[in-house]
């Protein structure tokens, strides 16, 4: 049975095509201009990669969309619901799945079948995690992909206010003007976000194994900060930013079987 999962991220629309339990293709497009165009572009990209046509698809489930327009798919599932389903498929021992995207961060606690037990979403003061790293990479004149590796080379931990991203930004500017080494600033930035995400996960309680997904999971510096903050091993799956879409595709299959 072939299903599609669509995830409307703040920055990118992600699409996953699932054939029974095998991911056959992934597609992505900038949410940017228009949801319809972005979804079409991402789906076509995935369909082409899987050499399939839209008619072959049995069921489409989306996630990440508000209660607004659900006209791309048959139905929707919440992101935490999708993450729980996908998380246990990617790592059987996964019980806490943490999703950090451009704008929002969320975490879900699940059982071995991937059904949700509890969930948390970031407090308002902690919004803008992913976008924060990008803005700071510009201030440091460091290519975004290099921010993570650079922060691993830090020689000192510079504490920074963890309550608000905007204020953390202004503290980074002060560090720049005091000529703090770039590696230490990069680490301070990652630690600042990790502190806020860990703070949120503590509300949920930390049950191992912990799986980190979402765009920021690509950033090795952030993963390292999360490990130190949580004090436990942090697993990162392949293609972390597609996990929600993969979860939606799994839910689509369940809904067809029911």
């Amino acid at each position: 049975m072939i299903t599609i999962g669509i995830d409307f991220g703040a920055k990118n629309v992600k699409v996953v095509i699932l054939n029974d339990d095998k991911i056959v293709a992934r597609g992505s497009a900038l949410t940017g201009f228009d949801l319809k165009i972005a979804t079409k572009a991402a789906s076509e990209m995935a369909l082409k990669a899987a050499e399939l046509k839209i008619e072959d698809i049995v069921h489409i489930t989306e996630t990440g969309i508000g209660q607004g327009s659900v006209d791309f798919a048959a139905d929707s599932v919440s992101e935490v619901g999708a993450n729980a389903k996908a998380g246990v498929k990617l790592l059987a021992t996964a019980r806490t799945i943490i999703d950090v995207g451009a704008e929002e961060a969320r975490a879900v606690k699940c059982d071995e079948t991937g059904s949700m037990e509890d969930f948390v979403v970031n407090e308002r003061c902690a919004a803008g995690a992913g976008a924060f790293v990008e803005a700071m990479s510009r201030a440091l004149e460091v290519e975004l992909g290099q921010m993570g590796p650079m922060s691993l080379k830090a020689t000192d931990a510079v504490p920074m206010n963890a309550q608000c991203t905007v204020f953390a930004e202004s503290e980074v500017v002060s560090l720049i003007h005091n000529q703090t080494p770039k590696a230490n600033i990069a680490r301070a930035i990652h630690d600042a976000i990790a502190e806020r995400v860990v703070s949120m996960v503590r509300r949920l309680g930390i049950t191992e194994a912990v799986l980190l997904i979402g765009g920021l999971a690509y950033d090795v510096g952030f993963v390292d900060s999360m490990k130190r903050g949580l004090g436990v091993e942090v697993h990162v799956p392949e293609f972390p930013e597609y996990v929600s879409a993969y979860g939606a595709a799994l839910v689509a299959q369940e809904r067809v079987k029911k």
Partner: protein
Amino acid sequence: MKMSKEEFWRWPEYRHTVEGIDPTKGKVISGGVDIGSVSSKTVIMVDGEVFAQSVMRTGSSSPDSAERTMNWALENTGLTLKDVNYVVGTGYGRVNIPFAQKAITEIACHGRGANFMWGPTVRTVLDMGGQDCKAIRVDEKGKVQNFLMNDKCAAGTGRGMEVFADLLSVPIQEVGDRSLAVKEEPQSVSSTCVVFAKSEAVGLLRSGWSKDEVLAAYCQAMAHRVVDLLNRVGVEKEFVITGGIAKNIGIVKRVEKELGIQALKPDQWRGDPRFDPMLAGAAGAALFAKVLYERSQG
């Protein structure tokens, strides 16, 4: 998988020399260097008249940025750093500008610069920079009487705008105009803080709001935050806006509408459209440098 990334947040850097001024004839050549959190600016004056200027992105080291913006301003003017009698540094990075004799805060410099750019009738200056925004009350000479800076929740105006433009893939120079292209003002998003406004606005995008409506909602939220600051310091005419955000017509128009007061436009007084409101701080610093130099000569 990452498509070619057009950088929507980048704005144009430039330098400029004013025709018809011969620096060698001048008695005092003074310099003002404003190292902001997002942009670095230099103004070179000959006997208190603007001769050369440059605006560029602040790099990751402020002494570097200071040198680069100063050298770019001096480029093929025939002047070198040695010829500049006195330099005043201002802005975030004012403390580590190696060639500046004195550092004065951007509040005093923007107050003086606004007086220079728009004349003695200016009483209220709104400086919206990359990181902070300031509401400054000045007298007829441009001396600061009272001022207020944003509290935490209103920080990050300029930088917040860059992130927002990038998030919505809209070139930053177009954000203002597009935000005014809406039929009527959308219901306002939270204006408690720029981050809330941003995440709320993006949420609206996903629930069917048009791109322009989301831009309008964000600009409106930012305008609310700034007007709140202005009301606290008390607004007296004439009112001007300096700093990078002065170029965002979407913010300027909404601030004017909510205040019920029109801001003097940059070209209104000096008749010189190139007088960029971003340079008010550097201009003020250059004027202070001139007085300090004359005072040092006794």
